[in-house]
Each structure stands twice: as C-alpha cells, then as structure tokens.
C-alpha cells in the first residue's frame, strides 16, 4: 500500500474520518494493526477506533497529518512522554490553543496514549500541566468543575501542612 493512499477511520460515535496512510502510521497501535492485516481483504473498510470520540479523533488525525513527515518516535524508547518540555513548537502551540475545551484536551491526551503517539502524548501532557500551574486550589476547582468534598477541618489541616504553597492571606 503506498503511503499516500487514504484510509477511513471510524470513531466511537460512528463518525468516519479520512486520513492518509502516512499520517495513520504515526499511531503505533494502528500502524501495527495495518501491518498485520491482509491488505487485499481490508482495503477500503473503515478501521474501527471505538475507544476515541469523533471529535477527539478528528483533532488527533489533524495533528498526525501535519506531523506525517516526521520520524515516528520509537515507543520502545523509554520515557519519551516523561521528558519535561519547556515549550512547544509554534504549530503545535496554535493547535492546542485552538482546542480551548478542556474535556477535548483530556480526550486527545487519552487517545494519544491509546493510539500510541508518543510525541502527541508528550505535548498534550505538557499542555495539561501548564493549565494546572500557578492556579490556586479554588481556581483549579472552578477551572475543572470539581466539587470540594473535603470537610473544613480536613481542609484546614492540609492547608497548615503546606502553608508555604498557599497564597498569603
């Protein structure tokens, strides 16, 4: 199969997404699957990716299409995603800036883990960590829509334990 041929992916909500084979090969999970499958019988059939929503898969494929020329990062190489970045390349910065929705960001992160795209996983983790940085506890709750289920006593205790981390007030 030539690298510029198109394949169809089917997301969890039965949305079909077209992608070049080269882009799909950025996903180690799908790349391995395509190598194992018999080409003649599967050509043209949509590949089910039922663990990923259409919205997230669309963004993941958009990212893969842009990065399709890149070397596929070896997944065997330990800790690619664990390396701490200081910044993202410009295109990727814009890519994540356009996502806006936090749920979608987390879905992309999950999807890149499931589909084994180390670089996208590393990038999305960086973006999530950035979002948590410098926020007060209250801001984190508001930002992520979380209910505080700690009792005031428990909270006071934790606050005292780590007084250095809390804003002075």
């Amino acid at each position, binding site marked *: 199969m030539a690298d510029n041929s198109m394949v169809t992916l089917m997301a969890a*909500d*039965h949305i079909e997404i077209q992608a070049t084979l080269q882009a799909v090969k950025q996903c180690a999970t799908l790349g391995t699957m395509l190598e194992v499958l018999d080409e003649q019988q599967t050509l043209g059939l949509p590949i089910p990716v039922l663990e990923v929503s259409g919205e997230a898969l669309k963004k993941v494929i958009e990212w893969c299409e842009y990065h399709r020329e890149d070397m596929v990062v070896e997944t065997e190489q330990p800790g690619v*995603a*664990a390396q*701490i970045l*200081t910044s993202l390349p410009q295109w990727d910065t814009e890519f994540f800036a356009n996502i806006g929705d*936090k*749920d979608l960001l*987390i879905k992309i*992160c*999950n999807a890149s*883990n499931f589909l084994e795209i180390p670089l996208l*996983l*590393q990038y999305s*983790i*960086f973006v*999530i*960590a950035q979002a*948590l*940085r*410098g*926020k*007060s*506890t209250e801001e*984190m*709750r508001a930002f*992520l*829509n*979380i*209910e*505080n*289920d*700690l009792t005031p006593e428990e*909270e006071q205790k*934790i*606050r005292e*334990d*780590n007084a*250095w*981390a*809390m804003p*002075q007030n």
Partner: protein
Amino acid sequence: MSHSSRFIELRQLVFGLTPEETRYLGFLISDFHTDIIGELPLELLVLIVPQLELEDFARCLRVSKIWRRRFLSESVTLAYARCRWPAMDRYDFLATLSRFGWASYSFRQPLQDVDLELVSWDSKAHYKLDPAYHTGANDLPYDYTQYSMNPYTWDSFSKFYDSGKVAWHPCRCVVVVDDLRSKTRKVFTPPSGMMHGSVLELQSLGPRLVIGTIDRLLIAWDHVGNQAYEKLLPCRSLRCTTQGDRVAAVLYGGDVVVWSPGHALIRLDTSRLKPNVDISPSEARTWEACLDVFFDPRDSKSLYLASGHFLATDSGRMVHVTVHQFSGERHVASWSSEYQDPAGYVNQLQFEFPVPEPRIVMAEYEFDHSYIVFRRKISIGYPHLTTFDKKNRKFVDLEPRLLWPQRLKHSRPGMGAGIDLDFMVRFKPAGYEVVRSKLPLKHDHRSRSSNTD
C-alpha cells in the same frame, strides 16, 4: 432504532440547541460527569505530575478527596519523587514535599514570620562549647580565644554548610564546627599540634568529616565521633570532597586520590583521561584546575571525576564537559558533551583590556547529590551550562527553574549560602544567618547521603 441512527439524531439535536438549552444540558451532564483529572488513567497522571511545581502539587492535594487520593497514590508519588529527588530512596512523601517546599519557597518570597538568627564570627560564642568534646574552657587553643574577625576580610576565609552544621576557619590552624540543631560548637586543631607559621586551608565539610590541609598534610576531623586523622599526600591538594568516611582530593599535577581514615591512599588512574586536544597554553598547564570530584550517594564504590573547559574554535567558543566514572581505582566509563558556548558572542566585543578566560565550575545539590551541575565561573547571563544526572548517567538539560544557585553544595570562599531541608544558611560579613525550618524535626527523612553511610 439502530445504534448509528441514534447517534445521528443525538448529534442533530445537540447542534440545534439554544444557549439556554445548552446550559441546561451542561447541568444535566455535570451530574454524572466528570472530573477530568480525577478520571484520567494513572498512567497518564504519572506523566503529568513531574511537570508540576512543588506549590502546584501541594495545591492539587487540596482540591478534593479523589484528587488527594490519586495524587498521593504510590505510582504518582513515586514518579514525582523520582523526577524531583532522584537520589532519595527512603522517604515519607508528604514530609519530604513539605520540606522541599519550604526550602524552595523561602528563596522566592521574602520570609515572613521566620526565626532568623545571626551567629557572629566571634569567639565569645553564641553557641556554647559542646560539653562532650570540650571538657573545660582551658583546652581552647590560644589563637581561638585571642582572634577577632575583621569584617572586611570575612570573604577571604572558608566556610561551609552541610547537613545542619557550619564549618569555618577563623584563624591559622583552628577549625570551628557549629551544630545548628543542638546550638553547640566544637573547636578543632591539628592532632599533631599547632604548627606555627603554617596555614591551614579548610577544604570540605561532609555529614561526618571536615577536611583541612596544611601544605601536603591532609587532616580529617570526625565532627560526629570527635576523632582526628592525618594523611600525608604525595602532593598538595587543590580541592577536596567528602562523604561518609571517605575523602577524595584533586592534587596539583592532576592526580586524584581517595582515602578513608585507617586505610591506604588509593590513587585513581587518570593518565589516559587528560584531553588530547589543544586547549590554550594557560589551560593546558592546569588540567587539574578544570577538575572536580563527586561521590555517589547510592554507591559507596563509585566516584565521579568531572571536567569542564572552553575550547576556542574557528566557529566560536565551545563548551566541553566530561564525566568519568570510577569504581574503586578503576576507570569504568566516560561521558562527554560538546556544544557551542551560548555566551560565546562576548568574545567578539572589543575590549581595551584582555577579558579573563571564563572557567567552568562544578557543583552538586545539597538535597540529594543527584546531579553534577556545570556553571560558568564568570557569570555573564548564562551561568548554568549543563547538568550530569548521576542516576541515569547522562547529560541532561534541566529546566532553569529547577536550578537554584543557593542550593548548590561546595560553598567555597565567595559562595554565599547553603540550604537543605532543615536549615538555610547565608554567610554575611558579620556572621552567618540561620533560618530554621519550622517543620517538625522528629522524622529524619533526609537522603541517606546527608546522614551517614
């Protein structure tokens, strides 16, 4: 109705919603949905947390019960500790987090409500003499009782901070070790007696030994067990480091020796390690000036010899750094890195006078001894060059925010501070300032290296 047509209908319905309906739907969904971090698989959370600052991590612990449980789960705390404190092998995570937080926070914010103590360079001690070591005031050396510190010369005498103790060198052959915990002082003199006319150099302070040299004589005082040992070196020592009962010294001439009291001197075979490149004559003359030695807190046999120098090439100035690992006296491995000097442009500026050749100094963190940090001696905007990770045995680029010059060990003359999880010490003309961590000291969770081994 088939599965896929339900999805199509639902999609049509959602896209046709009015803003009010969207809000209502958001409300309905928020009932069973979704704490995205709380529901993130742990395997992803362990990748996210190492990127969080200590403060951020601590704040996450307070968000909710689920968050607290997840952020304190074993895999997450392990991942965080591995990244932040790689050499610590036994710890109580929360206590360690608090102490690190205290230590790093105290440099970022003006300290409020802290107990600041100034111990003056002074023989009329703030600290009483340790009764276990000093049986009476009579055994104090005459020099010590008579000297007075001139504040203008405070910078010229050596002082060190390590694991709750400050060692300083007030005069000639006298070494003072102050224990900040018990607020007691020990005054040491050479075991072979005061040598008039000779000058002692205070070289290093470790958790167990304090090291001084008088010409070729190396003196190790055990400031815990109150013993003193001497060893005649083949040559004068340029710099020393100590951990546990071991001492390593770089000698003039480039030899490196390791010694423990009661044992023979081990000479490392460095003959084939000298760089076979043309460095400028002034540097070639003193290869040893670019050398420093470091121990490994996890392996008592290991020793690291680090060297760093600048190389002038046609395309600008290069930074060349090397780390050699020894096991016993045997050289086992080397790692090198060479790259363009980020501040090389300074050379192109035309100065009326010769610009001093920059030097690279090497140091490590008092916290956990996990990295060898290469820094520029003459700071011109890029003081930090690179870092060697002893645990993973490779050069790494740490984020600058993880680097705090004040946290670096080896407070040689001219370096102004020492800090660890319990104390922060700043050296000043009048004396040294001590800030005590207010955290309870009942658990001792410091790294093994800063205890004894």
